C-alpha cells in the first residue's frame, strides 16, 4: 500500500515539478531506471519468499543503479557505449523476467 502511494507520489511530483537532471547524466538515466526496476522486482520476489530485508534492498538498489550507469559510462569512454548499454539492458531484462516468473509462481502458484 505505502509503496504504491510512493510510486504515485513520485509520478505526480515528476509531472508537476518537471525536475531536470544534468545533461551529462542524461544518457545513463534509462539504464539506471532499468537497473532500479530489476532491484524492485528482486525485492518484491524476496518479500514474497520471506527473505526481504530493507537494508539489503536499499543497498542492492543503489549499487545496481550505480553499477549499471558506471558500466555504460565506461563503455562510452572506450567507444563501445551503445553495445554495453544493450548488454546491460539484456542482462537486466533477463533478471527481471526471472524475478517476474518467481513472483508469478508465488502469487498464483502457476
Amino acid at each position, binding site marked *: *500500500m505505502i509503496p504504491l502511494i510512493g510510486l504515485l507520489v513520485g509520478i505526480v*511530483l515528476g509531472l508537476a515539478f518537471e525536475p531536470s537532471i544534468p545533461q551529462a547524466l542524461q544518457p545513463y538515466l*534509462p539504464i539506471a531506471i532499468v537497473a532500479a526496476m530489476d532491484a524492485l522486482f528482486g525485492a518484491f520476489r524476496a518479500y514474497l519468499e*520471506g527473505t526481504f530485508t*530493507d537494508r*539489503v534492498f536499499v543497498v542492492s538498489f543503489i549499487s545496481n543503479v550505480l553499477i549499471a550507469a558506471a558500466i555504460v559510462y565506461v563503455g562510452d569512454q572506450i567507444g563501445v557505449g551503445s553495445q554495453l548499454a544493450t548488454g546491460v539492458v539484456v542482462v537486466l531484462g533477463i533478471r527481471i523476467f*526471472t524475478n517476474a516468473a518467481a513472483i508469478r509462481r*508465488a502469487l498464483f502458484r502457476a
Partner: protein
Amino acid sequence: MPQRFGGPCSVPDPSQIPAPRRSSKPGAAVRRARRRLVSLRRAQHRLAEPTGLPELRGGIAENHEGDARAGASADQDVPTIDDAASVEPATNGVGKLRRAFLHPGKGQVIAAAILLLVGMAGVMQIKINTADATYSGARREDLIQLLDGLGAQSRRLESEIAELERTRTSLKSGADSGRTARDAVRKQVQDLSILAGTVPAQGLGIRMRISDPGGRVNAEVLLDAVEELRDAGAEVIEINDTVRIVASSWFGQDGQGGLLVDGASVTRPITIEAIGDPHALEEAAQFRGGIVSEIEGPRISGHVQIEKPDPVAIDSLHATNENQYARPASAAPTPR
C-alpha cells in the same frame, strides 16, 4: 555466520552466543549478538506461521536479489522448511500481500521512498524522450556526421541562392530595358496616331470661324489657311468639327461651287480648329497679307473671328486605309 544453533524454532539466549573472534570491542560483540538474535527470531517467526512454497524456495533460492544476509538466513532455514510446511497449513503470496496491505511496516516505507525516486526518474526519462527524441540519444560521431551533412547542404543551397539571384538580376535588367523600349514605342505610337488622325486630340489652340456670305471662299483659300496654320506650328487641324486634316488630305470643289475636303462637303460658315501655340497661330492668321486680311479683303469680303478656347478638343478621326502600293524600302527596325 559461523555459528549454527540446534532447533529451527529455538531461540538462543543472548548470553549463550559466543563472542565473535574478529571483533575485540565488547559493544560490537553485543550488537552482533543482538542482530543474530533478531535474525533467528525472524526465522522462527517465519517457520511458526505458514510460509509455504518449499519447492519454490528449493528451486530458486540461489538467485535471490543479491542478498547476503537474507540469503544466508534463508539457507539456514531451507532444511527445516519442508518439515514446517508439511505440518502447517500453507499460505501463498496473496495472503502475504493482503497482510502487508493491512499491516504496513518499515520496509514498506523504504520501498515507497525508492519507488518515489523510480517514478520520478521514469517520468523524467519519458519527458526527455518525448521532448527531443531525435538527437538527445544520438552519439557524438552521429551528431558530427549530421552536422557535416547539414553544412554541406547549406553550402549547396547558398550557391543555389547566389545563382538564382544572378538570374533574377539579369531578368530584372532585361525587363527594365524591355519596359523602356515599350514606353518609347508607346510614345511613338501616340505621336504617330495624332499625326495620322486616328485618335482624338485636345490642347491649347485657336478656333477660326470664317463667315463667307458671298460663298467666295474656295479650295485655294482654304488650303492657304491650312498651310498658314501649319507654318505656324499647328499640330492637329480640323474643319467644321467633321474633317480631320492629315498628310493625305486634299481640297477640292464640286460642280455647284461647294467645297470638298477629303471627299466630304464642307458647309459655310467654315470653322477651322487648330491645336498649337495659340499666340503663334493667331499671329500667323492675322499678319498683314495673311489669311485674315485676304478673306476680309474686298475680293471675298468675308469675316473671320478667332477665339482661343482652352482646351481645343478635336474629336473627328481620319479613316486610314492600308497602303496598296507603298512598302517600306528596308525592314522596319524591331524594338528590343
